[in-house]
């Protein structure tokens, strides 16, 4: 079940990503699996689970792309890293609008902003990733029942 959700989400994102970018998403499987498993504990439609998981994955990928450019001195890699991060963040906004995830957008954007301040302060990517997961977990706890299904079904 989790595997189908992840496969469908990855297919959706890969269809959305324009050819000119040459971006191949290389998502952290464990990281995505944990969120997919969490989403399965909520009675949310498959389509919306895909959207939430997709936005989460895009934000993760955008942050990682921008963080990783700092480790590389090559100008081409630097350019690609910056563009990829910008594009994935923009795509995240586009997906949130397309999927009418207004509440999620109003929640995620301010959090993404805080993560940028944390990154400037020198917080490591590993910690940032945990913060992102915890934030999504809290969002689902508070808003999971707003998606038309029943309340949280698994503790």
């Amino acid at each position, binding site marked *: 079940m989790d595997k189908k959700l992840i496969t469908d989400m990855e297919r959706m994102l890969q269809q959305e990503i*324009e050819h000119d970018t040459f971006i191949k998403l290389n998502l952290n499987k464990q990281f995505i699996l944990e969120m997919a498993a969490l989403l399965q504990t909520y009675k949310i439609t498959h389509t919306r689970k895909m959207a939430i998981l997709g936005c989460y994955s895009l934000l993760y990928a955008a942050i990682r792309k*921008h963080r990783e*450019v700092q480790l590389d001195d090559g100008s081409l890699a630097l350019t690609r890293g*910056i563009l990829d991060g910008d*594009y994935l963040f923009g795509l995240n*906004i586009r997906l*949130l609008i397309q999927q009418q995830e207004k509440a999620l*957008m109003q929640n995620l*954007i301010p959090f993404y902003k805080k993560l940028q301040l944390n990154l*400037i302060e020198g917080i490591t990517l590993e910690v940032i990733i945990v913060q992102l997961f915890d934030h999504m977990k809290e969002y689902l706890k508070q808003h999971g029942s707003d998606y038309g299904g029943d309340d949280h079904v698994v503790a």
Partner: protein
Amino acid sequence: MAVMIMLLHEELRISIEDVNDSLKQVILSDEDLPVDSTIAQHIINLVQAGGKRIRPMLVIVGSRFGVNDNDQNLVIRAATMLEYLHMASLIHDDIIDNSELRRGQATLHMTTDVPTAIHIANYMMARALEWVQVDVDVDIDSDKHKDEDLSQIATSASMITQLCIGEYQQLHNRFNFNITINQYLEKTKNKTALLMAHCLQAGALIAGADEATTQLLFEFGEALGMAFQIRDDVLDFTQSVEVIGKPAGADLMNGNVTLPVLFALENVEIAKQIRALNNESSPDQMNHIIQLIKESDALERTQLLSIQYLKTAEQIIDQLEKYQAHHDLHTLLQFFAK
């Protein structure tokens, strides 16, 4: 240059002080960022360094084609947010282009470092998007109306992907002297013109303009944006470092094949020398080619295409004559024609 900018906003009856105040307010009102922090100061400095503020002006002019008079708060918010997206994208562009100066001042990554500048630009994008969505219901009676307007503003923000596509197209074609004029125009549209079109469209939609008018304003903005960028590509060859903050021919030095280069390539003798350029060419080689391009008819031909786009824009204004605000479009057109 400064006199021309003053004239533009004055002729359009737009208070540039209000726009700048709004740009500062985005940062000063952020509870997550102390006002006296270094990051806040960097951003305030960027705002104070100025800029043409073309995009906010386009949003405001677009709103003059609508029927709602009470949404000035939202119009200014959309204008502010779109200018932030532009400012943030310039920070990333400066890193990509390795530019040391912008408007005669050190670029942000030169003042801080590359990673910090990347994250400050990201912060600016996210903060502007956050800011545009909070406390907007002060002047708005209808929640439904507010929701639609916010969706419109957010949709404009997703334009970031198009800006990136233009940059990707430029990146994939560095020192590629075989690109076609159509490829150049497509890149120019994505990189510059579409954002300007979206600015006019956003203003029009927030103000409740009808669909046909909104579409015409979008097309006007696109034509204007094309003319603007093409002329900018000419200025890259003709202006000095003192005027544009970067050396003449900086685009070519970075491998960006712009329209003057494409026209110069039609001259067999110059083409041979241009095609020999690559990212390891010496400054002397580059400057020699830049001089050859300046002495050819390439800049004049480029300028002519820019004028063609301005004529297209003028034809669109003719279709909007029933609106008093069509005079403002003429003002914009004249500014870009100078």
